[in-house]
C-alpha cells in the first residue's frame, strides 16, 4: 500500500499538469528578464507557461501556492554544447556521439541518439538543469575512421520527466551545424588550416549549387569531397543563413579566419570553445558573433589553447559579446549536470555573478534561437523554474524545487536511490 501510494505520488509529480495553476510566492526572484531582480516576488504558472511575474501578482483562488520564503527563484539552467542523454556510459573522459560514416557528416543528427530514460537526465535535473543543447562530438568516431570537420546537427532538448508516456525531449532540432575548425578540423582536412578553408568553400559552393538544382551536382565530385547528397542538403540552411555553424575553434588566428570566412560566405557562426577569443574580442563583437566558451579552460591543453584564461568571459562580455558556458565535453565529462559551478567559478574573474547566471540561462537560449520559449522568467515563456536554498552558483546551495514546462519534477535520480539504499550502513 505504501508502495502504491508512493508510485501514484511520483506519477502525479511527473505528469505535465497542463491544467494546474501554481503560484510561487515570497521568493527572491532573479527573472533575467524585463522585471529584473525582485527582492520579494511572485510568479504565476498556468498551462505550462509563465503568466505573471512581479513584486505583486494577483493569485487566483484555485492556484496551488508554494511559499518560497528565504529561497531564490531562477529560470532553469541550460547545459550548452552537451552530451546529455547520448551515452549509457561515456567512455574514459570523452562524451558524445559522432558519425564515422564518411558519407554522413553535416546531416548526422544527434537528436536521434538522445535517450529520454538516461539516468544522466534526472541527475542533471535535480541540480536545476532543465534544458540542454545536445551537440555531436566528431571525436567520437569509430576506430581508424577518418576525422570529420562537420560533426552534425545540434538540438535543443528539455529535461522533463516523461514518465512512462513515451515521446521524446525535442524542443528544436537542427539549431546549429557543428564544425571543427581548430587543430582537429585542420587535421581532418589533410593537415593544415589552409586546406580546411579551401574544402569548406568548396562545400559551401556545392551546397549552393545543390540548392539551386539538386540534380546538377556531379556525383564524382561528391566522392572527392566526402559529401553525400544528404550532407549537401543539410548544408543548404547554413549557406542560406538560416542555420548557424557552431564552430569549435580556439586559436586567435583560427577565430579570425572563421570570422573572415563567415563574412565572405555570408554564413552565421557561433564560436564554441574559444580559448583565445579574448584576444580577438573586438573583432568578434563587431561581427556580432556569440561565443559558447569553455569557461573552465585555463589549460594550454593543445597549442591552440596556449592563451586560455579564466578572464576570457569578462573580456568578451565587456567587449559586448554574448557569452554562454559549456563544459569541457570533448575531454572530461564532469560538470555536464552542473553548469552552475562553471558560472560560479567564472564569477571570480570579473564577470558578475548575475552575468554568469545569464550565461547559463538566457544567453544560451538567445544564441540558439529559442529565447522566445525559455531562458528567463517572463510571461508567455515555458515555466522552467528552479527554487534554490540560496545563491544558485554556490557550492553550499541545493535545488529545492524544479519545474520544467509547468510540471514540478520529482527530485529523485539514480544517484539518490543508491544513496538511500546504503545510507543505513552509516547513519
Amino acid at each position: 500500500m505504501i508502495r502504491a501510494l508512493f508510485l501514484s505520488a511520483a506519477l502525479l509529480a511527473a505528469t505535465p499538469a497542463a491544467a494546474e495553476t501554481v503560484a510561487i510566492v515570497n521568493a527572491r526572484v532573479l527573472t533575467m528578464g524585463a522585471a529584473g531582480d525582485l527582492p520579494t516576488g511572485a510568479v504565476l504558472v498556468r498551462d505550462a507557461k509563465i503568466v505573471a511575474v512581479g513584486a505583486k501578482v494577483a493569485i487566483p483562488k484555485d492556484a496551488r501556492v508554494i511559499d518560497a520564503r528565504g529561497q531564490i527563484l531562477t529560470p532553469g539552467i541550460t547545459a550548452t554544447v552537451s552530451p546529455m542523454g547520448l551515452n549509457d556510459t561515456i567512455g574514459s573522459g570523452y562524451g558524445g556521439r559522432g558519425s564515422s560514416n564518411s558519407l554522413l557528416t553535416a546531416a548526422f543528427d544527434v537528436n536521434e541518439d538522445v535517450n529520454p530514460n538516461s539516468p544522466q537526465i534526472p541527475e542533471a535535473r535535480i541540480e536545476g538543469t532543465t534544458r540542454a543543447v545536445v551537440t555531436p562530438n566528431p571525436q567520437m568516431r569509430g576506430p581508424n575512421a577518418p576525422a570529420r570537420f562537420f560533426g552534425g546537427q545540434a538540438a535543443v532538448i528539455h529535461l522533463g520527466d516523461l514518465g512512462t508516456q513515451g515521446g521524446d525531449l525535442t524542443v528544436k532540432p537542427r539549431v546549429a551545424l557543428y564544425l571543427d575548425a581548430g587543430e582537429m578540423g585542420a587535421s581532418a582536412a589533410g593537415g593544415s588550416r589552409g586546406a580546411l578553408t579551401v574544402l569548406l568553400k568548396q562545400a559551401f559552393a556545392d551546397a549552393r549549387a545543390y540548392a539551386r538544382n539538386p540534380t546538377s551536382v556531379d556525383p564524382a565530385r561528391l566522392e572527392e569531397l566526402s559529401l553525400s547528397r544528404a550532407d549537401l542538403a543539410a548544408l543548404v540552411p547554413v549557406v542560406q543563413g538560416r542555420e548557424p555553424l557552431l564552430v569549435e575553434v580556439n586559436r586567435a588566428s583560427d577565430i579570425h579566419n572563421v570570422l573572415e570566412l563567415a563574412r565572405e560566405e555570408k554564413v552565421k557562426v557561433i564560436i564554441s570553445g574559444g580559448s583565445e577569443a579574448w584576444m580577438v574580442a573586438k573583432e568578434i563583437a563587431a561581427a556580432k558573433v556569440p561565443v559558447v566558451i569553455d569557461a573552465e579552460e585555463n589549460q594550454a591543453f593543445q597549442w591552440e589553447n596556449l592563451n586560455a584564461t579564466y578572464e576570457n568571459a569578462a573580456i568578451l562580455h565587456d567587449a559586448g559579446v554574448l557569452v554562454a558556458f559549456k563544459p569541457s565535453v570533448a575531454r572530461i565529462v564532469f560538470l555536464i549536470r552542473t553548469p552552475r559551478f562553471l558560472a560560479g567559478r567564472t564569477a571570480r574573474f570579473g564577470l558578475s555573478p548575475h552575468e554568469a547566471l545569464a550565461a547559463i540561462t538566457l544567453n544560451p537560449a538567445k544564441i540558439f534561437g529559442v529565447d522566445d520559449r525559455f531562458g528567463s522568467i517572463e510571461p508567455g515563456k515555458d515555466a522552467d523554474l528552479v527554487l534554490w536554498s540560496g545563491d544558485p552558483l554556490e557550492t553550499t546551495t541545493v535545488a529545492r524545487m524544479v519545474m520544467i514546462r509547468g510540471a514540478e519534477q520529482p527530485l529523485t535520480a539514480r544517484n539518490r536511490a543508491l544513496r538511500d539504499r546504503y545510507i543505513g550502513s552509516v547513519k
Partner: protein
Amino acid sequence: MLAALPLAGCATTKAETRPAAAAPPPAPKPVRAGLDPTARPDPFPSTYKPAPSGAVLFVNATIYTAAGPRIDGGALLIRDGKVAAVGQDIPRPADATVIDATGRWITPGIIDPHAHIGAGSSPGPANGDNSNENGPNPGGIWIEHSVWTQDPMFERAREAGVTTIQILPGSANLFNGRTVTLKNVPAVAPQGMKFPGAPYGLKMACGENPTGGGPGKAGTRAGGMMGYRNTFIAAQAYAQSWADWKKRGTGDPPRRDLMLETVAGALNGDIKVHIHCYRADEMIQMIDLSHEFGFRIAAFHHALEAFKIAPLLAKEQIAVVTWAGDWSGYKMEAYDSIMENAAFVQKAGGLVTMHSDNVMLMQHLNQEAARAMTAGREAGLGTTPEQAVAWFTINPAKVIGVAEKTGSLEVGKAADVVLWDADPLSVYALPDLVFIDGVLRYDRAHPAKQPQSDFELGNTKRPISPARPAPRGLGVSQ
C-alpha cells in the same frame, strides 16, 4: 616474515659448526655501483631547500587549522618556515610583518594526493612522452623521471592554493610504478621540488583500465587477480633472496629488478600502496589480497563505490581518495556514483580526501570538498566545514605520509598557508597569498610574485588577473 625463519636458522647452524682454526672467510666481492639498492637507497635525492623566511603574523582572520574547530578572529604566526603560533590570543612579536586578514580566511595549503600534472603535461605534446599510461615494464617506473617541471599548470595550481602534490603513474597496468610527492615550487628538475622525506607510493590498478584487451593486459578481472598474486609471490621471493644475500655477506647479489624492488618495498611497508579501484566488489578482493600477502593498502583512489562498504574501509583503515561524485557514468565501473560518497566514509569513521586527477579540477579542490559536504549535510550525515577542509589538507597529507610535516596549522609544521579572500568553501573564494615553507610563492596583488614557467615566458600573452574583491553573490542585491 615467516619464510625467512628456517633459512636464518640454517645459516646460524653452519656458523656454529665451522672449525675454529679455519682460514678467515674471503673478503666479500665488491658489488658494482647500482647493483645493491641498499648502497644508495635514495638515488634521485631531493635538492629542495626553502629560502630563508622571516616572521609573518596574520591577524583578524577566520582560520581553518585542519586540527580542530574553526577559529574566528584568529591569528597565525609563521617564522623560519614553520607555524610558530595559532589561536585567538597569541604573542605578537615586534619583528613580524603583520597582515590584516579582516574578512579573509586562512587554511593550510591544499594537498592533492592524486595528480598527473607534469607527467601528462600541458600542452600535451610539450613533454612528449605520455608516460602517464604507457611504457615498458610499467611496474618498475618512477614517475618522477617523467615530470616536466615547466608544465604551466604547476603555476595555475599554486595560484589556486595547491602547495603539495602527489603525482601518480597511470592505471593501464596492474602495477604502474612509483609515485612522487612534490612541493609546488618552481624548479628546473623534479629533484628541486621533491618533498624531503616523503615516502614513495606504489600505484596499482583494478578494473577496466588494466583489464581491457590487447597485449600485456590481464584480459579479465580474474586474470588481473592472478597477475597481482603471481607478482606478490615473486616479490616475496625477491625480498627473501636479498635478505639471504645480506645475511650471507658473500657471493654475488641477486639481480636487481626495479618492479619487484618496488613491490617488495610495498610488502615491507616502506612504500605506500595506492590502488586505483572503482567498484566495491573489487575493493573487497584487494583487501583479501592484502591479507593473503600481508601488506597494507594506504588508499583506494577514485573509489566511487566506497559508500557501499564505508564501515569496512574504516575498520581496515584504508583511506578513500575520491571526487565529489559527479564523475558518474563516464565508464561502466563508474556507473554507481553518489555525491555523498565522501560524507559516508567520514560518517563511518574512515579517512577520506578529495583528489583531482585533472589539472582543471586541481584548481578547485576546495569547492569539490564543499559540494561533497553539502551533499552529506543534505542527507543528514552532519558533515561539517572542518571535515570538508580536512578533505583537502590534513587527510591527503596522511594518505601520502607527510602529515607529520604539513597538512595542518599546528606549531612546528611547515608554514604551507593560504590566505583566501572569502570562505574557502565558497565558489567565489580565491587565494590572495600562498606561502610554501614560509616563503611567499604567490601574491594576487603583485604580478612580480606570480612566477611564470620557462615554457610560457615570452611565449604566451595571458592577461594577469587583477586582484579583485570576492563577488557578493546572488543572495543579495548587486
